[in-house]
Structure formats: C-alpha cells, structure tokens
C-alpha cells in the first residue's frame, strides 16, 4: 500500500528517445538522416532573424506595413518565409496605446517560420498560466511596465492562426537602413513581452 501513491518512475529521456528512434528506424519508418535535417533546419536556419527582417521592412516601408497588417501570410511569404506552424499569420501592431502579447495557454503554439521554435519559458507553466490572468505582472517579469491607460491585448493562440507582434520602432532610428533596423528587433519583442 505504501507505494501505491508514488508516481511511476520515469525512465531518463535520453534512454526513451534513443529507444524510440532505434525502434522506428529498425522498422523502416524513419531515416535518421532526415531527423538530423529536421533538427538542422530549426536549430540553424529558421529563427527570429526571419521575423526581424519582416519587422524591419514594415518599419521602413509604409506600403509593406499596410500589406503586412492586412494579409500577414502573403506579406511574410514575400521573404520566402511560410509553411509549418505559420500557414495562417496575423500581424499585430503595437502602438502608444495598444500593447499586444502572444501566448498559447493550452500547449505552445508559436509562429515557427518567423520566430523558429519557442523559448523554454513560452512552453512552461508560469508563462502559460499567468499571461492571460496577469499580463501586466508577466510583462514586469520581463522588465516592461506599461501605463494604466495602455490597452494590453493578450492573444491566446488557441487554434491554427499564428500571431507575430510588430513592435514599435524605437526612437532615434530615423537614419537606419533596413538591415540595421533588423539588428534591433528581438524575439521577445515579436512575442510582445518586451519593447524593442
């Protein structure tokens, strides 16, 4: 009886993933080289630098910005970004009076083509539980304090639409090129948990 409440002992994840891959490769269902290619794609090729380019263009080109806010998927595809977990994109503009932030309370939906894979905190309980009930408290954890009259809009991406935040262009960047602007854009700014 004493142990019936004890949680089941979990095998180390290293052993579990190794066994799973070995099993599926052995059954001829998986090519290990394809696994490596998948990892390489999202570890080294697709990431927040993509989103930064989109944001920098929107900061530089009013027509592009208008298009981006009207049809996110199409305007983002202009850069060749799209596909898995970003098929249907909506871009949210931060202004003086509106601050947008994105969460997925139920799992960790995230716009891969423009931001890559989500950071650890985005997938964890503290962010997922608090973002919808205490967004201003979460923003403080990230060092951002907003005035009471700024409207905070929290986007809980509960279905298949994915959201990218268009941060406010920082002051004093008037003379910068698109490439220089892109350097200023952070992943967290495009999730909407910090200003840029």
């Amino acid at each position, binding site marked *: 009886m004493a142990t019936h409440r004890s949680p089941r002992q979990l095998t180390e994840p290293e052993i579990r993933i190794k066994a799973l891959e070995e099993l599926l490769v052995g059954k001829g269902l998986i090519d290990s080289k394809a696994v490596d290619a998948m990892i390489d794609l999202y570890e080294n090729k697709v990431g927040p630098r993509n989103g930064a380019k989109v944001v920098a263009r929107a900061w530089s080109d009013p027509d592009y910005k208008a298009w981006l806010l009207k049809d996110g998927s199409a305007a983002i595809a202009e850069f060749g970004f799209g596909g898995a977990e970003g098929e249907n994109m909506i871009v949210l503009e931060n202004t003086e009076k509106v601050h947008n932030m994105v969460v997925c309370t139920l799992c960790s939906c995230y716009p891969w083509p423009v931001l890559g894979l989500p950071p*650890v905190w985005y997938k964890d309980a503290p962010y997922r539980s608090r973002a919808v009930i205490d967004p201003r408290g979460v923003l403080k954890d990230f060092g951002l304090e907003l005035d009471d009259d700024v409207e905070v809009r929290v986007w809980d991406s509960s279905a298949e639409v994915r959201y990218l935040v268009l941060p406010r262009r920082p002051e004093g960047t008037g003379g910068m090129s698109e490439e220089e602007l892109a350097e200023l854009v952070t992943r967290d700014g495009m999730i909407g948990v910090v200003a840029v």
Partner: protein
Amino acid sequence: MNGIHDMGGMHNFGPVEPEENGPVFHEDWERQTFGLWILCYGAMGFSEDESRNAIEHTPPAEYLWTSYYEHVLSGLERLGVEKGVFTEDELLAVQRGGKGAPGGGPKAGRRVIGPEEIEPMMREGGTKHRPEADVAPRFKVGQEVLTRNDNPETHTRLPRYARGKRGVIESDHGPYVFPDSNAMLQGENPQRLYGVRFSAVELWGPDASKADGVYLDLFEPYLEPA
C-alpha cells in the same frame, strides 16, 4: 478534456524566467525528440490534433514535473502504441537494450522521408484553413456571443477560463478543420473560426484591468448568440 494542460488563469507556478539568448535546444535528447517528433507525423500517421491530444494525456503529475520535450516523448510513446506501430513491451525491451520486432503498424509500407525532402516539406506546411468548405457563418463581426460551458472529456480548444463567458466577434477567419472532431478521428468537419475578444473584467472579475482584453480564436460550435 479539463486537463492540467489547460492552465490559463492558474496561480502559484512562480515567476516567468526569461531567457533572452538561450539555445534552441538545451540537451541533446531534446534536439532528437524534436526531430523525430515531426517525422513521426508521417511515419506513424497522425495529425497535429492527435499529437496535441496525446501530449495532453500525459499524467498530470508528470506533466508538471517534466519539461516540454518529455511531454512530447510521452505523446509519441502513447501514439506509437495506439497506432499499432509498436507495443509497449517492445518499446520497453528496446529501452533495456533489446531489439524491436521488424515492421509493424499501419504505416509500415509507407515511403520513408529522406533528408533532402525536409526543407521543402516544412516550407510547404499544411494549412487547416478550408476556404472551400460550405459552412455559412452563424455570427458576424461585432456580434456579442456567449461561449458554451461544455466540459468534454475529449480534446477541445476552448480553454476552461473562457467558458460561459461573453465576448465580441472581432474577425471571421473562415472554415478550419475542427480539432474536437479531427483529434478523435471523426473527420475534419470544418467549422467557422472566429477571433473573439473578451474583456479582462469579464474573464477575471471586477478587479481586473478595465483596459485589457484577451483574444481567442474559437470555433463556431463553441459559441451561442449572447
């Protein structure tokens, strides 16, 4: 399912720990789990809705005690058995250094995806938007709606904190695959998807910030006219 994954609005999980420039993966097994996971969609033959459903079925204590890619591992192990790709005994045997049986599972005859196919496949993606589906909208932008207070034991994308709540339709995204059906292998059953705004006060009570709101994309069957 009112599972532990449905954690929006819960307290006591502690502060968010920002990590500005962390690596994409923190451990080699996370890297491997991610790569294998995405390939398993095809190799085992499951949809994203089934994948989410499997991950949600991680036992609650384990869900909180372990990290994201362990939930994924748990989901993959569950799906592999459910789909008949392998048995639990077989998996345990391999974990202990044994060998799995050859073949197995409905997808055993399927063409194996090679490394050169990965990038085009992911850049193509697979939208769940079904603009061609003949489902006329029941609601229009600007309309007040009330979310249903259903509590299915099966997969759903209406979080508990947004049930029985009054919101306003902000946008009509058109027809999308309905996860509640698709996760249960009951077909795509496309339903109109709406962006709905809820005031923070409606969701959390009079002490919430008057200015703020939460936006959710909700399928038509979740909604009633207010």
